[in-house]
């Protein structure tokens, strides 16, 4: 048996394959295709205090080896989540993590406090990197001072493990990683989507109602990998790699570059079974390479030979 588990502080994940927020619904959308409980964890849809309708249609555009989205955090709010979604989520035998979003620091704090009361949610992912909302989101994650402020404020109340999700839309990602580590984050996940646009040349209009959207998919993988590599070398806390991971090979690249775990995003749209296939692929890679602990390959490319 290969050892696949990893820890964020004292929170154990049975394997390093998680699913990315906004791409895996609440897990149940995938029940027909895989056993969600096999995964290391799932990060559910971006959640806000109040219900949100999100942005107007069209909210997506396909782009070469990727897609732009401007969903804008459509969700039914934390009350609905707690009453109607949380009970179902509690049945999964895996770490269920809530991705929290706000327009103000008070929103983030209030949400973190609400989640403190939910026994089956062992961690939150602080999303300060959503490019698709006017207030909040990326506004926090692209400014060092507000990144510090929001992380500090949430840390002060959060009794769960705190994962901070970074935006790639910055010049120096390491600066942001250091800030969230200093303010007490237990782990860092990256990257969220890259800001982009697409134009419909037939209609001679932007493809998205919001003009700008977030780019995801294989198109962003090299950028994501570079940022994960930079951050993993700079911080001591675990790094969770995200961005264009389509298969086990992609996932292993992230692990070798320094990620302790990965999240599968857009790939789940194309093959809903991607996450379990990646899990199986990582396991056989380790076996074939003669490793019996995944720990041995994390950041391998940085090790002196």
């Amino acid at each position, binding site marked *: 048996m290969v050892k696949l588990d990893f820890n964020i502080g004292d929170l154990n994940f049975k394997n390093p394959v998680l699913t990315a927020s906004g791409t895996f619904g609440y897990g149940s*959308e995938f029940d027909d295709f895989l056993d969600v409980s096999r995964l290391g964890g799932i990060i559910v849809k971006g959640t806000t205090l109040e219900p949100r309708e999100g942005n107007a*249609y069209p909210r997506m555009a396909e782009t070469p080896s990727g897609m732009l989205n401007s969903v804008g955090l459509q969700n039914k709010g934390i009350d609905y989540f707690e009453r109607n979604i949380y009970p179902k989520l509690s049945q999964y035998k895996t770490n269920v993590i809530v991705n929290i979003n706000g327009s103000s620091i008070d929103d983030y704090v209030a949400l973190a406090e609400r989640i403190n009361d939910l026994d089956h949610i062992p961690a939150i992912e602080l999303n300060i990197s959503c490019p698709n909302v006017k207030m909040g989101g990326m506004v926090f994650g692209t400014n060092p001072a507000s990144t510090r402020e929001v992380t500090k404020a949430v840390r002060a109340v959060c009794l769960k493990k705190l994962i901070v999700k970074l935006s790639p839309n910055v010049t120096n990602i390491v600066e942001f990683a250091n800030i969230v580590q200093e303010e007490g984050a237990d782990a860092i996940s990256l990257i969220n989507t890259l800001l982009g646009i697409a134009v419909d040349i037939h209609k001679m209009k932007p493809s998205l109602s919001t003009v700008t959207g977030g780019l995801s998919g294989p198109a962003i993988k090299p950028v994501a990998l570079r940022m994960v590599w930079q951050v993993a070398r700079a911080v001591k806390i675990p790094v969770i790699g995200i961005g264009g991971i389509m298969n086990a090979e992609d996932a292993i690249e992230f692990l070798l570059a320094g990620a302790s775990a990965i999240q599968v995003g857009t790939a789940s*749209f194309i093959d809903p079974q991607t996450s379990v296939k990646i899990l199986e692929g990582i396991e056989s890679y380790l076996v074939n390479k003669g490793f019996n602990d995944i720990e041995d390959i994390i950041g391998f490319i940085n090790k002196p030979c």
Partner: protein
Amino acid sequence: MAKRIESLQIIENKHLNNDFFIIELKGNGQIPEMKPGQFVQVKVDGSPGTFLRRPFSIHDVNYDRNTYKLLVQIVGKGTETLSKLKKGDSLNTIYPLGNSFSLPGKGQRPLLVGGGCGIAPLLFLGKYLKKNGYDPDILLGFRSRDRIIEYNEYIELGEVFLTTEDGSRGEKGLVTEHPLLSSSRYDMIYCCGPDPMMKAVAKFSIEHKINCEVSLENLMGCGIGACLCCIVETVKGNLCTCTDGPVFNTNDLKW
């Protein structure tokens, strides 16, 4: 019915004209029960230009042959690639997805209205109505005579009426201009086609207080309710075309 992901074998790819073709897919095991209005997410080839799956309505199902068909119009890269697939090739599909058309009330008269690739789900629907004891009439709109696709199978289901925008066949004009529509013979209209057609038929139905269901073709990221990209504004808030639809009652849509 549980959704499944399967690579299915193409047993026929029949070209109807320059724009349209029908792919017939054979189930691996027994194909599941499918309902008219439901759709399939097809993986084209995973190339950079056709990265996401493409949604297509279930055009026809044959449980005896254990096959189902897709009627596809070539509009871009993905559909172009699909048009070139041959018998024996395989196609990865996720199906059956979405909700379905509802049956009319007892003794009510249904009318099916379709245009372009929007006629795809209407064959399956027509057969379903027929099986349940209804006699649908069918109104199909095309741009011109050479765009008309084979509709023999529809004739077996009910009377077929045609319109072409240039008048080269059938009534000249749009489906909404056909006298049939205003004959007020119908209690239930089912419509699928380009957005302007569906909107016009919806408007007509609402004005004449006729129950009307449309099948929407919103852009889709996933087809399974995970991405929230396919939303449509309804009186109940934003709903997903892929899970709450693709079939909607026009009374619910904010058109």
